[in-house]
């Protein structure tokens, strides 16, 4: 029962999922629309609470035990609570019962998203420019043939992207385009074809009850 019922539901839903692409009948389409837009959306919304419970308890205990850097846990808990309250009661852009505007200064969740999350996220993202440099420096060493190939093709494509490369050799952008469209395409295709088979085989293993890690492993 403890794993048979979930597995049975999984198989049933798996069949709905697989067949949905093959059945054009409006009845089947309506069923799939219901599953996707109502049932699964509602279910996944509830899952967040599981995670939040864990996060809050974890940081609460850090504060209580006065672990190292426990001050940051205050930042996390306060910002979470404040944002959630503003969002739940103030509406997404200030249409709720909680006022989210003082004079011309508004602080509804959409504004918080634009003015707090976007700068933080964009800056995290921009760290990648720096990390690409340090990763290239450390790893692009011609230790063997394969490493040399990796380095050489990266070098050519990098050079082909900037005006300097064109100035050195006018054909460089074409060479870099060739690398992107011929060897790169071939490698990606080969890997993708294998992945499809792996995905299908894994699904079969899940349906057959061989692959049980989603049940938490064990027996």
């Amino acid at each position, binding site marked *: 029962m403890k794993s048979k019922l979930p597995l049975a539901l999984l198989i049933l839903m798996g069949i709905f999922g697989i067949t949905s692409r093959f059945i*054009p*009948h409006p009845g089947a389409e309506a069923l799939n629309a219901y599953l996707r837009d109502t049932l699964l959306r509602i279910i996944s919304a509830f899952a967040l609470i599981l995670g939040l419970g864990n996060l809050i308890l974890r940081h609460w205990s850090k504060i209580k035990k006065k672990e190292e850097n426990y001050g940051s846990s205050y930042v996390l808990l306060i910002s979470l609570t404040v944002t959630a309250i503003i969002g739940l009661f103030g509406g997404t852009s200030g249409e709720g019962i909680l006022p989210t505007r003082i004079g011309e200064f508004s602080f509804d969740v959409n504004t918080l998203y634009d003015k707090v999350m976007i700068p*933080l996220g964009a800056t*995290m993202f921009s760290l990648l420019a720096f990390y690409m440099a340090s*990763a290239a420096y450390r790893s692009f060493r011609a230790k063997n043939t394969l490493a040399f190939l*990796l380095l050489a093709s990266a070098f050519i494509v990098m050079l082909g992207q900037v005006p300097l490369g064109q100035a050195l050799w006018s054909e460089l952008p074409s060479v870099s385009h060739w690398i992107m469209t011929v060897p790169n395409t071939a490698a990606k295709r080969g890997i993708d074809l294998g992945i499809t*088979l792996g995905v*299908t085989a894994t699904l079969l293993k899940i349906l057959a009850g*061989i692959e049980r890690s989603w049940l938490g492993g064990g027996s």
Partner: protein
Amino acid sequence: MRRFGHLLVPLLLCTLWLPAQAQAPPGGVTAKDTPSDDGSSITVAWEPAPGARGYRIERAAAEEAFETVGEAEADQRRFEDTGLPQDVPFRYRVVTLGAGGFEAASPPTAPVMAQPQWFNFDLFGVAFACVAFAGVVVWYIARARRGEKLFLRRIAGLDAVEEAVGRATEMGRAVLYIPGTGYISDIATVASMNILGEVAKKTAEYGTKINVPNRDPVVYTVAREVVKNAHIEAGRPEAHDPNSVHFVVEYALAYAAAVSGIMVREKPATNLFLGYFAAESLILAETGASTGAIQIAGTDQVTQLPFFVVACDYTLMGEELYAASAYLSRDPLMVGALKGQDIGKFLFLLLLVFGSIASLIFGIDAGWLLATTGY
């Protein structure tokens, strides 16, 4: 002038009449319910009329007049009338648009109704491929079940997992396990949960700490069970720390920020990045590299593989990640399924080689085998 008047009028009429006479209506007009659809369209087909500059397609419901539903170019042979109600009969006719504005309409077709179908035959090839491949996999699983031994080659990245856990034990530091930023329904995450089980068993045996931060709350729930059960299986339930698996945040960049923080503050000896990854891959792998940890990554996201290859010690590429469950557990059924995958790849190889040969040497187009719409 007046003498010729009686001649002029029929002459004029003739010049008007002649091209129109020459302008034939399209022949063989048929209207059929469009196959493999949801019952909202009818396909009209016709034979070309010589000299046509285009066609106009007209439709009439029972007892009503014909009205235009669309136009087609001179080289078109069919037209799909969409957005129709189901099970309502319509008649169609096709009008040739000739030179000089002359038109000629075909006789109306018999009434036809749009009806929904239960199977999309355009995707017959896809369905066949899915079923055929499933058959191959099931066949090999059955063979494994009968006790047949199947060979599995070495996968360096997976051998390294054990070594990496060992190193963390020697150094007395933790293993950081990142199950990716995907959902539980991503196959990469499923594979990752499987590897997590094996890794957690090893850490339980050695008494090494394991830290598993999660981006998805459902994956978090599963990972928690996986780690707990691994401790039970290893016979060390008392060593299980319920705080070792924890949820962080759903937003992937915030998750990357938090995990970077964990790496520099707790300095785990081993970082394992296994699962689905997007752009955060290099943020995680580079921060990890700066702390001197031994790093093993694996993902089926081909666009992220280059970054892992550059920044990690070992990388499991695509299918190697899925193969991990069979490789680490040596469960014969899993190995059987893997053998089935190999047969699938072999069939792909054959199709590509013989398809290309057939086309290049014999001029036979094998592409139709791989068509996904309308054939």
